[in-house]
């Protein structure tokens, strides 16, 4: 029987499975992704997901689950049409969901479906790679055999970040990792380092490990070899959203369960993920330069049209009508059926299928997708032009422009740098996706103040002065809206755009970083030359720490209050509020007493906010509100400690933020006692705690002296009974 079970397990383990997340759960490719999912965007004339699937197939993966969320129908239709479903020894299954808003949700859903039976590969549908998985898989399995806590192997690759902009060549932030050089275990992961140039590591890292290496020249390929536990971990920790920021960091910080993450570095093979426009540009160029061989345009890895590679890295598909006077420069890909007019110059660009390009056009470093019409005399620089766009004669694109589907640019119109043009209007801020983005930002460090100078700001102002958004703003006869760049997003825009960062901006960044480097140096000169810290500086530090904690708790309270208010407005059930507050508590590392205090504060605030004329009415408000939220309050008051915290909180409120309550202190306290929210022990403990306090602090103890007295007597009576 046992043997049979083992056999079954063995059988079940054999097919290698992979999960492709066909949604990046970000908005970095907007406005394009409003109309088409990111994974179907063409990358050197083949949809991104084809690269991922072709790689997984050649790497020996047998079963692939494609998780589709945004535009899921388009993804499924595409997979259907392109025969991915009918491959021998390679089964592709789609999992559809409409309410997942993060990778965490997706994995929880997949866990529920119970389709993953063994170790699996987790990638997103925008991964380009040619690595062989066998070595990494072998290492992973080996480690698993020795240590069942080794749940994940991350694939990394050397790639030096730019010393000036502090970002990788893929446009992502500089990544710091601490890796044990012997076991290759990942000990620390930080991709949101502030520009101040320091990094704080836990001391335990140094004491627990014989040697560690801190690396900033590694690129995270976002290819993970996971054990099935990963899925259940996501389900257990329902607040994990982001694969790296929540999951990886969560596992690294949490040492109760002892789960471990390892890394596998690849050298000769290629792996990268398209995260933003910059990486779109970089990876396209890598493909054209054949680093991804055999996933290159002239090899028909899947469904892409036959293309020939000519001298100097020029790729040409058949049936191109090209004027003899046109110049097609190096590293250029021209798709099937495209026509190119006289004296047109194209360099470092990708042109899709069925485009017609007129005469005297200059195209440099652009990505032009299918069926685009570019009339005579247009000038395009470092831009992305989506399907069906028309550029009337004389129009020009400055670097970094993105023209979404079917936009028409008017005659002689100059589209300003870094603008995004779409037929759809820019969504208003209170979009659910926007909220997600916002949450992402708030969990990291605040964005660096824009250094892009006044010029951009002027531009923005000009743009806002343009006629009302109901009218198209892309010139005479143009169709499309120019999206405004969000406040503080200028810098982001610059870093993530397809266009290279202009030299003057680079100089500006360099100066800023230099300044920042200088400041700590100057500070350093005040320190004792021996480098030891004086007692003053230590106390300073601890003060700062204390302040940090205080800051945290204030932010936490605000968050809880906001959550609670949302719950009141949207009539959310208690369970959901508890869930949200719990996740807040975890993310701010707070005790349950803090939750109780914060929640109580919110409830009282609610009562206070309700209209009232006299203290009596206010008291009535309190009674109704407390009745309504009694269950919720009780949930957070499992023991005396929390109840005391609540009383202290109330006292604080009466003293500081809500003085209107001070005359009602006793009444409210009595009511809470009647409602069984606060027990007499808590009140008595609170009173005895306060006995030693200063007179000013004792106001409320005195106010409730009688009540306390009564309570004491009552308890004594009970004892007597």
């Amino acid at each position: 029987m046992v043997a049979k079970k083992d056999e079954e397990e063995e059988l079940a383990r054999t097919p290698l499975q992979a999960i492709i997340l066909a949604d990046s759960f970000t908005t970095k490719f907007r406005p394009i992704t409003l109309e088409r999912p990111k994974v179907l965007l063409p990358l050197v004339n083949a949809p991104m997901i084809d690269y991922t699937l072709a790689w997984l197939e050649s790497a020996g993966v047998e079963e692939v689950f494609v998780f589709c969320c945004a535009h899921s129908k388009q993804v499924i239709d595409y997979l259907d049409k392109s025969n991915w479903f009918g491959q021998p020894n390679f089964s592709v299954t789609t999992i559809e969901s409409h309410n997942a808003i993060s990778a965490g949700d997706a994995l929880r859903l997949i866990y529920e479906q119970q389709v993953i039976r063994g170790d699996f590969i987790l990638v997103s549908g925008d991964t380009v790679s040619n690595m062989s998985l066998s070595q990494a898989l072998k290492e992973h399995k080996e480690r698993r055999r020795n240590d069942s806590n080794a749940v994940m192997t991350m694939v990394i690759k050397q790639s030096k970040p730019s010393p000036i902009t502090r970002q990788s060549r893929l446009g992502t932030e500089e990544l710091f990792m601490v890796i044990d050089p012997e076991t290759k275990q990942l000990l620390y992961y930080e991709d949101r380092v502030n520009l101040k140039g320091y990094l704080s590591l836990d001391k335990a890292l140094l004491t627990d490990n014989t040697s560690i290496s801190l690396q900033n020249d590694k690129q995270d390929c976002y290819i993970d070899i996971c054990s099935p536990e990963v899925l259940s971990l996501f389900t257990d920790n329902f607040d994990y959203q982001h694969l790296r920021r929540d999951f990886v960091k969560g596992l690294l910080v949490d040492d109760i369960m002892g789960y471990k993450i390892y890394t596998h570095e690849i050298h000769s093979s290629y792996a990268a993920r398209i995260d933003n426009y910059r990486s779109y540009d970089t990876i396209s160029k890598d493909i054209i330069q054949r680093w991804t061989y055999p996933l290159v345009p002239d090899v028909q890895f899947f469904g892409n049209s036959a293309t020939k590679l000519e001298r100097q890295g020029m790729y040409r598909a058949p049936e191109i009508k090209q004027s003899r006077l046109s110049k097609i420069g190096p590293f250029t890909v021209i798709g099937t059926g495209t026509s190119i007019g006289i004296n047109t110059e194209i360099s470092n660009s990708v042109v899709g299928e069925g485009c017609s390009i007129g005469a005297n056009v200059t195209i440099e470093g652009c990505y032009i997708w299918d069926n685009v019409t570019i009339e005579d005399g247009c000038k395009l620089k470092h831009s992305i032009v989506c399907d069906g766009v028309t550029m009337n004669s004389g129009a020009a694109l400055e670097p970094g422009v993105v023209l979404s589907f079917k936009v028409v640019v008017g005659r002689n119109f100059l589209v300003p740098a870094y603008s995004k043009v779409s037929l759809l209007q820019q969504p208003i801020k209170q979009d659910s996706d926007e909220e997600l983005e916002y949450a992402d930002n708030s969990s990291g460090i605040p964005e660096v103040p824009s250094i892009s100078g006044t010029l951009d700001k002027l531009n923005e102002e000009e743009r806002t002065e343009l006629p009302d958004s109901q009218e198209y703003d892309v010139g005479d006869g143009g169709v499309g809206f120019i999206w405004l760049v969000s406040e503080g997003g200028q810098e982001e825009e610059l870093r993530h755009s397809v266009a290279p960062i202009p030299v003057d901006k680079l100089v500006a960044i360099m100066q800023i970083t230099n300044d920042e480097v200088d400041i700590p140096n100057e500070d350093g000169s005040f320190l004792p030359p021996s480098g030891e810290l004086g007692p003053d500086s230590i106390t300073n530090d601890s003060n700062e720490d204390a302040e940090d904690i205080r800051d945290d708790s204030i932010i936490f309270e605000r968050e809880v209050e906001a959550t609670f208010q949302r719950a009141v407005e949207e009539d959310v059930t208690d369970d959901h509020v508890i869930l949200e507050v719990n996740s807040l508590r975890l993310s701010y590392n707070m005790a349950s007493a803090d939750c109780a205090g914060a929640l109580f504060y919110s409830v009282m605030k609610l009562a206070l906010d309700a209209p009232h004329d006299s203290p009596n009415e206010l008291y009535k408000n309190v009674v109704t509100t407390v009745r309504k939220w009694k269950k919720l309050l009780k949930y957070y008051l499992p023991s005396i400690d929390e109840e005391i915290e609540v009383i202290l909180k109330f006292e604080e409120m009466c003293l500081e933020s809500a003085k209107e309550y001070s005359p009602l202190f006793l009444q409210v306290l009595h009511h809470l006692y009647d409602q069984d929210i606060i027990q007499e022990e808590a009140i008595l403990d609170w009173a005895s705690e306060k006995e030693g306090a200063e007179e000013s602090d004792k106001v409320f103890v005195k106010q409730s002296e009688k009540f306390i007295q009564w309570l004491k007597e009552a308890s004594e009576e009970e004892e007597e009974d």
Partner: protein
Amino acid sequence: MNALVTEFIIKLKKRKIEGSKATAKLTAEVLRSCISQKRLPHTHQAAALIDAIRTIGEKLIAANPVELAIGNIVRRVLNIIREEDVSLTAAAVGGLAVSAGSDDEDDFKQDDHPGLSAAAVAAAARSTLRPPSLQTLLEDIPQSTAVPHTSSSGGDSEGKSKSADKNSKSRKLKHNVIEAVNELIQDIVTCHEQIAEQAVEHIHHNEVILTLGNSRTVMEFLCAAKEKKRSFRVVVAEGAPRYQGHALAKELVARGLQTTVITDSAIFAMISRVNMVVVGAHTVMANGGVIAPVGMNMVALAAQRHAVPFVVLAGAHKLCPLYPHNPEVLLNELKSPAELLDFGEFSDCLDFGSSSGSPLLHVVNPAFDYVPPNLVSLFITDTGGHNASYICSINISEVTHSAEPKTSCRQEVLSWIY
């Protein structure tokens, strides 16, 4: 379509099969299984079979146009079908063959045959590739006139009278074809043995032989000479960037040969001490030019400069009936630059986020070199040694049966503007 074929095509597209010999063998095996699974109609059997193989062949060739061995094998198999058909009809019809000429015109349309003479030469070509050559060659010529007749319109003229034969014939045709394809596979597998047999005639005592990269055929050739008690030394150029020469050196040392490893760039310095250069090839083109691993042209030029014989070993499956046009580009494959450089080390040179955004570093890693025929002193195939001009005639004779798919070499040249 056959699942086996689809799988093979995918493998070819993804460049998962390396080496012309392995490709040739797999192609032949895939075609054999196609033939055995193909249900043949009662009439026009050969034509049906040829059509089927041709469609599959076209797809295989398109899957990896650089690997010319696929096309070679497809042509060989088509040739086999025709010949078997001819010999069967010849046996059945006997003297009637002469009367068949009238049906030819009909046939041109259907099969695109260039003509009778072509068919005849093709048959001859096949026989030249097989050892008992001259006799069969002479015998085959009259028979082959019947090719068009039976392959397409044969049924009309003598269908009724011979209907009893049909069934047995159809089975026989298939059987014979499969038999012949098996023979072809056998030839591919054993070609290096036949080439190695000739080693003693070419390698003499105390000679110094130079080779580049790693070729199984060359290895067997050298070892065969060693087994025959020839004592000689081998110089192996390592063959950057794949360094397959290292593997060859290891193998040769294991077999007890005196071996010297040099870098590719030291070839010119070394060549004056060398008595003969022996190398393998990727493909031998119709004009006798050789597509070979990168670096070979340099070796050939060095050999010519010092009047050292430059000998190319090539199995019959490597003989391609196409002419090379612009072979440096069109018959080449650029591999990943990762074989040359470490991506991580150079990642800062490949950062497109600053400066002009255009890549300043370009890494070219071609897989093949083209050695023009005038640099090759001798070809050794499994049928013996030939010089370059004779290789021409072998190769061309094979293409003349050319209803079969051509690789796009010729068409490509039109689109190529110098």
